[in-house]
């Protein structure tokens, strides 16, 4: 088996989730009842037997570091390899790099020291369950310089507008990378590249004053370099706006969509909270809802997602909502189309109603 090292590059990811990214980067945003966005990216790597993972963090990474700890949840607390959280701290006086090349340049030791021959670079906004070993096999068979991962989406949504798209020839060779809104070949911000070649491209990019490794170092080199397109077939969600966050969260309530992301043989792992099982009382009425552990539900909940440790009092009604960790909903409160960030409290009888296409979002630790 080939050795791969992973880089999760958060450098160019914008914090576009409004209230949810006031205090944290997008990768640290809670998603799917008990996860954070980055859990999918890391689990994909460890499930592909990547044992060395670097995270290029740029901003608002306090909550991210708290979540990742030493990487224990993903078995990345290792003597060999493991998890490297790399915040922007650079002190090289000769450094002329810009943009995410600052990260590549100043953390070049990670690339130098790894025993892996291949590097997988991914972002955190494409929720999926991918096996990079399969992608690497195709990369090697194609003889390409770089292999990029894409998803052919059935339907285009607003979130796909900001994603790059691929034009592909009959041999799955990429002929163009662009932003054409009508294309359904959505580039998933993931690529595989040989370590030595990555090193070479980084040096060249820095010498030419580039500031975006993928756009300047790879996309701009077309058609001179061979870029192969690997099609990912499984469950996929691109989360880069509040609207896409809300809609793609609701998608998890569809058992089929759920099964495409959560697999027994490739589990999505996250930090453990040691919560008790969730408890339902005689008055609780719950349908079509995802419930994480440690919840106490006395009220009515439908078509919603409850994170860990949520308390819902008798008579409260929750519909089409996402309630994050440790929120407390007092009796007779009514929430519809609402996203509550962590530690919010909704007092007795309060009503919050958002629109189905624009949820009412309450920032962390608010009492209403």
């Amino acid at each position, binding site marked *: 088996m080939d050795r791969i090292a992973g880089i999760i590059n958060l450098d160019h990811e914008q914090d576009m989730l409004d209230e949810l990214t006031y205090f944290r980067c997008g990768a640290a945003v809670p998603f799917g009842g008990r996860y954070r966005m980055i859990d999918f990216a890391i689990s994909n790597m460890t499930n592909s037997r990547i044992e060395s993972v670097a995270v290029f963090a740029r901003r608002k990474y306090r909550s991210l570091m708290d979540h990742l700890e030493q990487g224990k949840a993903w078995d990345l607390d290792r003597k060999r390899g493991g998890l490297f959280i790399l915040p922007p701290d650079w002190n090289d006086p000769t450094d002329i790099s810009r943009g995410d090349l600052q990260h590549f340049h100043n953390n070049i030791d990670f690339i130098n020291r790894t025993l892996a021959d291949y590097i997988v670079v991914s972002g955190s906004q494409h929720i999926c369950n991918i096996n990079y070993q399969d992608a690497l096999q195709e990369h090697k068979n194609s003889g390409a310089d770089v292999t990029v991962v894409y998803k052919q989406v059935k339907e285009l949504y607003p979130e796909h507008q900001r994603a790059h798209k691929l034009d592909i020839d009959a041999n799955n060779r990429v002929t163009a990378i662009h932003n054409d809104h009508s294309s359904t070949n959505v580039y998933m911000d993931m690529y595989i590249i040989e370590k030595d070649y990555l090193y070479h491209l980084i040096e060249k990019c820095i010498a030419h004053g580039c500031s975006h490794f993928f756009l300047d170092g790879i996309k701009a080199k077309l058609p001179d370099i061979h870029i192969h397109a690997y099609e990912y077939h499984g469950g996929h969600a691109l989360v880069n706006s509040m609207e896409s966050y809300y809609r793609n969260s609701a998608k998890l309530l569809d058992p089929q969509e*759920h099964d495409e992301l959560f697999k027994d043989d490739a589990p999505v792992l996250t930090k453990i909270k040691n919560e008790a099982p969730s408890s339902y009382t005689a008055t609780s009425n719950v349908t079509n809802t995802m419930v994480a552990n440690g919840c106490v539900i006395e009220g009515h909940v439908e078509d919603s997602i409850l994170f860990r440790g949520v308390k819902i009092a008798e008579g409260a009604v929750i519909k089409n909502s996402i309630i994050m960790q440790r929120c407390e909903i007092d009796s007779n409160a009514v929430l519809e189309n609402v996203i509550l960030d962590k530690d919010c409290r909704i007092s007795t009888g309060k009503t919050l109603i958002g629109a189905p296409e624009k949820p009412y979002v309450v920032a962390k630790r608010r009492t209403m």
Partner: protein
Amino acid sequence: MKNKECVAMLLAGGQGTRLKSLTKQIAKPAVYFGGKYRIIDFPLSNCTNSGIDTVGVLTQYEPLILNDYIGIGDTWDLDRKYGGVSVLPPFMEAEGGGWYTGTANAIYRNLKFLNQYDPEHVLVLSGDHIYKMDYNAMLDYHKGTGADATISVIEVPWVEANRFGIMNTDEEGRITEFDEKPDNPKSNLASMGVYIFRWDVLKQYLLEDAEKENSSHDFGKDIIPSLLYDYKKLMAYTFEGYWKDVGTVDSLWEANMDLLKKDPELDLNDQRWRIYSKNPNQPPQYIAPTAHVRNALINEGCRVYGTVDTSIIFYGVHICESSIVKDSVIMPDVKIGKNVKINRAIVSKGSVIEDGAVIGDPSPDSEITLVADEGSVLAASLATHT
């Protein structure tokens, strides 16, 4: 190295025959409880929460799953550089060796383990009970009274006192007499199987007991009576709170059902006294549009399409449409088909209950049905019709 003030020894070698097939392949402390836990999570979490960071776990009967579960103790924060959890199985010695022959013998055979920490006190625990207890408060009491040994007791209803080891005490709480399952109890203070000994005293009595040919090498039958006979200072420490022996199928079922009462005595959501347990790290549970869930504890990884009423559902359980689970405990990874009826039952880990099966007797006071061996497949035709 600095000595440890108090080292815990957890007796986890018992078979627990009264739990029938639940302990056919696993030791009793590894039996599941409360939708997520194994019995041993309670004493080990109590140790961690009480600041006791050195625990020897004495294993003997069917240790595979228990050993695997304990691992390096990281689940309970007991992976320590000095101390932490140590699994202590019986072993061979240059001269003899062999199985542990009794609870006191198990500790006696591990004098070397205890000597390396040179503790002042030794806390002896069993892996049979569900309770949350601050052993540190008991240790303070033990030190404050200057006792040679302190035994934790709980008040039980007088009518049930004949089922327990009863401690008779004077006004100061000093134990004057120990009655094992007395016909006419003089007190209702039952021993909880939690002891703290001064290590020098315990060591002396263990060494003496080992020489006695007719001893059964048991704490309750031999060590405690010897201490009393010699007028050693034995104090009773009264514990208040939830404590339940889960040694039988009925009591295990009852203890699970206790968690479903309104404001249960045993609060599993207490942030200051967490019960730690190995987490399966599965997706959140999914409660489908067809589901009806009332009065239940449900863990992650479950998918509920049917009805769950007054039941405990462990992780990874699937309950299909039109099935009803009532007054039951469903252990991990059980798959329940359609139109299944389960009443007053405990279903073992990994069982597959096929469509249309009927299990258990719904009438109150009926015996609790146990769905047998781990991983069994129960077809509708083989189900226990009532």
